């Protein structure tokens, strides 16, 4: 970086960094793109080019969003939805980790279950909604099970690969220093699995959200899925789309949380590239 330029122009380094960031294509292309798309959409709505019965536009959706929050409907629907989301993840995460570890570490266990796991992995989970409903019902248990099926696969598969890709030369180091099996898990296997697990969790959260909406649409209708469907059926498109916006925000937030975890757990990688 040229250090003489700021002094010459009297611009502080902070300002300079700001303007340099602004000049990055990533930032301004995104800003312009958002401005054009949202602005264009809004403009079409304002000028009456969008029929409010068949579609809506940003400011109308914002107002509807606020109305739904003010009336308490959004909060109670989100609360209802989050119950199956959280329950599903709370089952899928530990279960997926345990299954992935057992499959990765114990050959016999892998042979015993890999057919089912990979068959399920290849099956579109939506197709399982009806069989699950028949067996477990269309309420909380059935819906949570759908979320579990959606979320668990990337966890199992990633953890399995993490265990499988343990550095063999480090495995030899643990053996050479007379490590017990338990110590080996603590010092080597768990730490090697963490990056794979975090990546799997990122995928799992996204899929859990999909599973939640699928369950709310296909089984007994409830939560944000129901809220959206009800208003769309009443031809109130702005209110029908508001829950979709909320789902979008939650999806982005979950991805961010996972990214932060990823950085936190791999601080030892930070300067690896130097």
């Amino acid at each position: 970086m040229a250090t003489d330029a700021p002094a010459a122009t009297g611009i502080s380094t902070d300002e300079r960094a700001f303007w340099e960031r602004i000049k990055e294509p990533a930032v301004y292309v995104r800003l312009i793109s958002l401005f054009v798309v949202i602005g264009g959409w809004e403009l079409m709505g304002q000028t009456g080019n969008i029929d409010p019965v068949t579609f809506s536009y940003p400011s109308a959706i914002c107002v509807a969003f606020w109305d739904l929050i003010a009336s308490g409907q959004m909060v109670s629907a989100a609360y209802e939805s989050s119950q199956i989301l959280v329950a599903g993840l709370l089952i899928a995460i530990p279960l997926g980790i345990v299954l992935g570890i057992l499959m990765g570490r114990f050959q016999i266990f892998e042979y015993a279950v890999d057919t089912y796991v990979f068959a399920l992995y290849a099956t579109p989970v939506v197709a399982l909604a009806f069989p699950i409903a028949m067996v477990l019902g269309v309420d909380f248990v059935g819906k949570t099970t759908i979320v579990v099926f959606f979320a668990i696969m990337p966890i199992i598969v990633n953890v399995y690969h993490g265990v499988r890709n343990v550095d063999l030369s480090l495995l030899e180091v643990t053996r050479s220093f007379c490590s017990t099996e338990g110590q080996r898990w603590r010092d080597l296997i768990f730490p090697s699995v963490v990056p794979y697990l975090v990546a799997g969790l990122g995928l799992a959260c996204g899929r859990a959200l999909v599973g939640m909406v699928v369950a709310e649409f296909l089984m007994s209708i409830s939560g944000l899925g129901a809220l959206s469907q009800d208003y769309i059926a009443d031809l109130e498109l702005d209110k029908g789309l508001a829950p979709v916006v909320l789902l979008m925000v939650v999806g982005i937030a979950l991805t961010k949380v996972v990214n932060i975890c990823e950085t936190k757990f791999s601080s030892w990688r930070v300067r690896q590239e130097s």
Partner: protein
Amino acid sequence: MSSSDNGTNPTLRLQGVGKWFGSLHVLDDIDIDVKTQEILTILGPSGCGKTTLLRIVNGLILCERGEISFKGEVVDGPRPEMAMVFQNFGLFPWKRLDQNIGYALRIQGREKGEIDRLVSHYTELVGLGGFEANYPSQLSGGMQQRAGLARALAAQPDVLLMDEPFGALDALTRETLQEELLRINEAEPKAMIFITHSIDEALLLGDRVLVMTPRPGRIRFQFETGFGRGRDLEEIRGSQRFQALRHYLWEAMRNPDEEPEPIPELVLE
């Protein structure tokens, strides 16, 4: 040192060791005695089974023929009295330097206070003081191998096994570490098997040099370097004896099938 001898009894004994990987015959009829506090360097062409030999001594793999014994006990698995320094360092990338150095001690279940004391002692001894909080990827290869050495030393083994530990390092770092290894061994003597494919390194570090044949690895010949303890590496490098031995080994390595002209004043077994 747990034994009260003066450093001449065998600590480690290999008798008739033979090893096959499937149909690949890797080691044949290896007999080696390593005395307490002796540094044995093993020199051999790449692929002759040096690493395999060290892994067998460490108890990481078993041999089909023969037997290893440590202080009279048969070695059938890794034991805490032996510690290995690995060619690729073998540090845990997610552990800080002090955690890596204290690894063997934690495995052995030592007390926290003792671990801290030993870790700081050996961290200083290998010249890594101040780098305790760094991760291996933040350090140069030379520093990583210092940590690998400190980890092995901290376990306070009777036998140190080193598999081309300086092979991945540049020439200058390598020479520095050779000096330091001798200095450390002076301070805390122990038996050492040091594998290398560098003739100079074998001569400078070894009390005894053992040369292996190409696969299947057999013992070709061995001799005492006779440079004595407290050796000054610069002085040795300039000595006639070193030059003569170096030339002899050079000829031997170049012609695996015939022995070079013996040097009269050296006793070669």
